[in-house]
């Protein structure tokens, strides 16, 4: 964000100047490292976020100036530090009511690191946890033979990556189409939507680990809890984008977002985690013995 300060100052001084951004991938992180030691950085970020969005939009347009077939173009999507990724994850797990995830954390610097690696972790976590939970559920049975179920990894990968990339694509297309009909104040780029969806899936990683517990009630409680958290992040992000639209369209859009999210979690729970067995109630056996005794 220090780069935005400098460029903003230069632009304010000389609004007609054409600026050329030269990507020097090795030097830029070092510069950021030295400048980011300043205290009070968080307050600056807050102000920049609630400031006029024109400046950030202008600078965002300037950032991606390399042509898309060069390596530097994709490097602009990985321009995040460790603390930024951790902040974004924190923001997705503890949604602040009223604050928009994109405006607060993404701030015209959408990254592909978070969505990609959160999805990868989620794929393996679901596969491993499902395998472990099935192992513990069927452990005592004499006929059970442990299998690694490796095929489920590819199924999990397809599902989660399709959800994390195709649903944002469809949503982005839909929002662009509505934007052409109704003037919305808030609009998101495709990468920002991918970012929100990717980070909102983070809560499912600890949820999947806790789903190993073979109690049906516990699993459903966990699922509803994580659905509420990540669903609220999505709703609070996308409600400002559709609230200026027709009331019904807005409600249907937000409802579809939540519904798809719920479908993903319910589907994962149902497919990867076998249902825990219900215990046979003990009292049946003594009555049978009683009837046998009376008959003889």
């Amino acid at each position, binding site marked *: 964000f220090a780069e935005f300060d400098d460029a903003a100052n230069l632009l304010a001084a000389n609004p007609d100047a054409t600026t050329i951004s030269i990507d020097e991938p090795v030097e830029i992180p070092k510069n950021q490292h030295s400048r980011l030691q300043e205290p009070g950085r968080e307050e600056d970020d807050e102000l920049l976020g609630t400031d006029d969005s024109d400046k950030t939009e202008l600078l965002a347009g300037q950032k991606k100036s390399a042509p898309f077939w060069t390596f530097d173009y*994709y490097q602009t999507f*990985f321009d995040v530090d*460790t603390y930024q990724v951790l902040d974004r994850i924190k923001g997705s797990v503890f949604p602040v009511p009223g604050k928009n995830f994109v405006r607060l954390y993404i701030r015209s610097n959408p990254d592909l690191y978070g969505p990609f690696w959160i999805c990868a972790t989620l794929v393996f976590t679901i596969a*491993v946890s499902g395998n472990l939970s099935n192992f513990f559920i069927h452990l005592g049975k004499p006929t059970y033979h442990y299998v690694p179920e*490796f095929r489920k990894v590819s199924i999990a990968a397809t599902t989660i990556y399709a959800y994390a990339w195709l649903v944002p694509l469809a949503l982005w297309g839909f929002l662009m189409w509505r934007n052409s009909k109704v003037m919305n104040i808030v609009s998101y780029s495709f990468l920002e939507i991918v970012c929100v969806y990717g980070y909102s899936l983070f809560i499912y990683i600890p949820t999947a680990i806790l789903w190993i517990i073979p109690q049906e009630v516990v699993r459903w409680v966990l699922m509803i809890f994580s659905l509420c958290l990540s669903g609220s992040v999505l709703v609070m992000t996308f409600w400002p984008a559709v609230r200026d639209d027709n009331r019904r369209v807005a409600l249907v859009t937000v409802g579809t977002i939540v519904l798809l999210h719920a479908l993903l979690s319910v589907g994962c729970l149902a497919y990867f985690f076998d249902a825990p067995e219900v215990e046979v109630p003990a009292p049946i056996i003594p009555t049978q013995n009683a009837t046998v005794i009376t008959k003889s």
Partner: protein
Amino acid sequence: FPDLTDVSISEDIPVEGEITVPVGSHSPDEEFSTLDEPVRDTIMRDLKAVGKKFVHVMYPKKSSALLRDWDLWGPLVLCVSLALMLQGGSADSKDDGGPQFAEVFVIIWFGAVVITLNSKLLGGTISFFQSLCVLGYCVMPLTVAMLVCRLVLLAGSGTISFIIRLIVVLAMFGWSTLASTAFLADSQPPNRKALVVYPIFLFYFVISWMILTFTPQ
């Protein structure tokens, strides 16, 4: 141009010199051509280089020998042997068994490529093949773990054998991750080290999981 008409190259000064541009580094290849040496020397030189790298992985000090002269023979041998040893897993139906040869191969190579791309996109200064080389060589402790697991499973597959296998796989997983981090961490910008180390951790965790869950028929 009237003044230039009487400029001429004298006929009796011979023009001579070398057309070839001299290469900057004087590698030993320049003194003698490796084309004439016996095949055994060529093979032994490459084998020695691969062997030296294996030793470097066993005792990871901060040395750049692994990074400078990269080769992919070691990773290929390790990957193929690991994938072969993971064969013969039990399967009631084809869908429930362990990973097939192609799956292990693809996971290791595709995973290494993705991690390398990730570290380069985050601003790392390591080259593509050097990173592949390091990640491939650091699979060696896990290959040793697979070998030990198969031997332990020959003895029996009860709880004790599982505990032994768990300890061995955990130890080798830690060794692999620490070895590759020792080699790769220096080439990253300091405020992004964790972002680069985490995918390496995930990569070796998945391989360790495949090794630990291997059950013979």
